[in-house]
């Protein structure tokens, strides 16, 4: 017996939503100046990928994709901790969060 979800909403919609989320993440990453927004865009990309994982896991009736999502979330949480710490450090040092200004490594 098919689930309600798969009956009503076709698979392609989930994947499209996932792709849209991922693309939004990329665009946000590329055009936003604020470091925190950039950071959130990364989270958006991760979640877009997570969505496709869950979709495929459901489609193929395999739990592996779902497990992977937990891994991604875990890594994302760790990354958020480290990333935010870095952002605070940067802000303390430079008094700005504009990505363009953080270019000390430039030649």
């Amino acid at each position, binding site marked *: 017996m098919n689930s309600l979800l798969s009956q009503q909403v076709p698979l392609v919609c989930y994947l499209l939503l996932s792709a849209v989320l991922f693309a939004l993440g*990329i665009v946000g*990453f*590329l*055009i936003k100046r604020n470091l925190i927004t*950039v950071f959130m865009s990364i989270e958006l990309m991760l979640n877009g990928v997570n969505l496709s994982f869950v979709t495929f896991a459901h489609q193929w009736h395999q739990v592996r994709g779902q497990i992977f999502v937990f891994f991604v979330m875990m890594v994302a949480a760790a990354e958020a901790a480290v990333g935010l710490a870095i952002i605070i450090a940067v802000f303390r040092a430079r008094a700005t969060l504009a*990505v*363009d200004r*953080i*270019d*000390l*490594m*430039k*030649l």
Partner: protein
Amino acid sequence: MNGYLHLWLIPLLPLAGFLINGLLGRRLPKPVVTAVALLAPLASFAIVAVAALNFFWHIGPFASVLPYTETCPIAWISVGTLHIDFSFVLDQLSLVMLLVVTGVGLLIHRYSVGYMAHDEGYARYFSYLNLFLFFMTTLVLAGNALVMFIGWEGVGLASYLLIGFWFQKTTAAEAGKKAFIVNRIGDFGFLIGMFLLLANFGTLTFSEIATKLGQDPGWTGGVVTVIALSLLLGATGKSAQLPLYIWLPDAMEGPTPVSALIHAATMVTAGVYMIARNHVLFDHSPFALSVVAIVGAATALFAATIGLVQNDIKRVLAYSTISQLGYMFLACGVAAYSAAIFHLMTHAFFKALLFLAAGSVIHGLGGEQDLRKMGGLRKKLPVTFWTMTAAVFAIAGFFPFAGFFSKDAILYAAFQQGTAGKALWFVGVVTALLTAFYMFRLWYLAFFGESRSPEVHAHESPWSMLGPLVILALLSIGGGWIGMDRFGSFLSAVTGPTIDPATAAGGKSLDLILSAVAVAVALVGWYIAHSFYKQKPERPAKLAAAMPGPYKVLANKYYVDEIYGATVVKPLMLTSTYVLGWVVDKAILGGSAWLLGGLATFAGALLQRWQSGNIRSYAAWLAVGAAAVLLFALVPWATFLANFGIHLTMAGN
């Protein structure tokens, strides 16, 4: 008791002396330096002396017989079928040579203690001298050509270091370079000879080569001649023969004891030794032998004529050394190897003595080397005078001095070789006349008449220097009494049988006649020198003025240095400066380096823009890259390209 001789100690002890004095000499007190420097050759000489007692007179602990081989237990070179051991061989030939090298070497070390006493580089000097002994004994003891080559190159190095010992003097530094470079040409010949030996015989061991040559009588001419001539080229470099003799006169820039040890008594005889060591090769090539004889005879005469007019006391002796080495080559060329070695030995005695006595004169005059400024030294330097007299009589070939016996043996051996041999004999006799003349010229100019520079107060050298002179004088007087017969029969195990005057054509009387001729010729030379430099000292100048052309040619040493300069050095310099320096180095190498550098800089300038430091641009490139990879992986390129008629063959298909 069958003990071990420990041949390896003979070279290694001087090496230890070299290391101690070379590394620590500057910090050690002078007496310690002296002790180390003298103990090394003394110990080596003691070992050789024990071996000599054992094998000459059979007094000693060793039951073994010659040749006595000692091989390093660790394999030296072992590649495929090529096996070369680091081996030393003691046989009659190397034993005689070792006695000369370590014996004369010891005396000259002793002499140097006095001669170099006030030199700043005292420890350096003795470390080099010990280094020389290390390499020379290695050369002599070598059981194969490669070990010999190590010694051969090593003595060249020691020679270079000692010629340029006073390197602050430009002439000395350049003389050292000249010696090294000219020797390099000879070494090239030696190397080619070795390669050919390996290619044709598969071995470098002297005894194995001799065995292989002996087994197959088909080895004549051809490749053997080429090998022998290559080795001869090596020998002419080391032994200062035509055409590579030019470095030896310049080598006189080194300290005089060095000239005595390296450039008269031992190192320069290495070429003769090498030919004697490889005599089986030469025996199988009559052509190579005749070349050796001609080179020897030509050099003997050529150098003697230059020696006639030199004014530097050491240069006279240098040309005389070249001339006497020519005698040895002449002897080798008529296959009288034992006569060559006999002359090598007596020459080592009297030529070392001549140089040391000249050194004593120079020392006594405070560094004066010009014969024209000497004179009247007979009374002021009595010991030097009398020892020098012994040496002059020995080299001129007067009975019963050492030179008489060995020179006579060579001339006799040459006379036995048919018509060509008679010609060689004649050249030898003329050279003997010239030798007697220029040696007595030196003798008269230095020791007789009035002092030509009265302001210099000549003083006799200390006994540390005179002691070796006296010992060498005794050897120069008595060293020949071993006699060619005994010497030849002792060496015959290595060098083959010698001609016995008793059974040869002409018999004993021919030998006597030839000896008489040689002595008579020497007397004539003495008489001419006497009339020129004792009776009428103005005569030489008159003669030179009467024949300005020949005199100038001789005084300028036949312009050989100039000819070599114009034909070899100059073109090489020009080629190096313009072709190699400008075209190859500056244009091709420098240009390509500049081009590569420019290319890298340019590429860097382009790529630099990528490194904007802007995180977003990095991220954009990352996204573009990821997209490109996806595109590459997802688009069915093979099908796509097939539309245009391009077919990719995949690994799986």
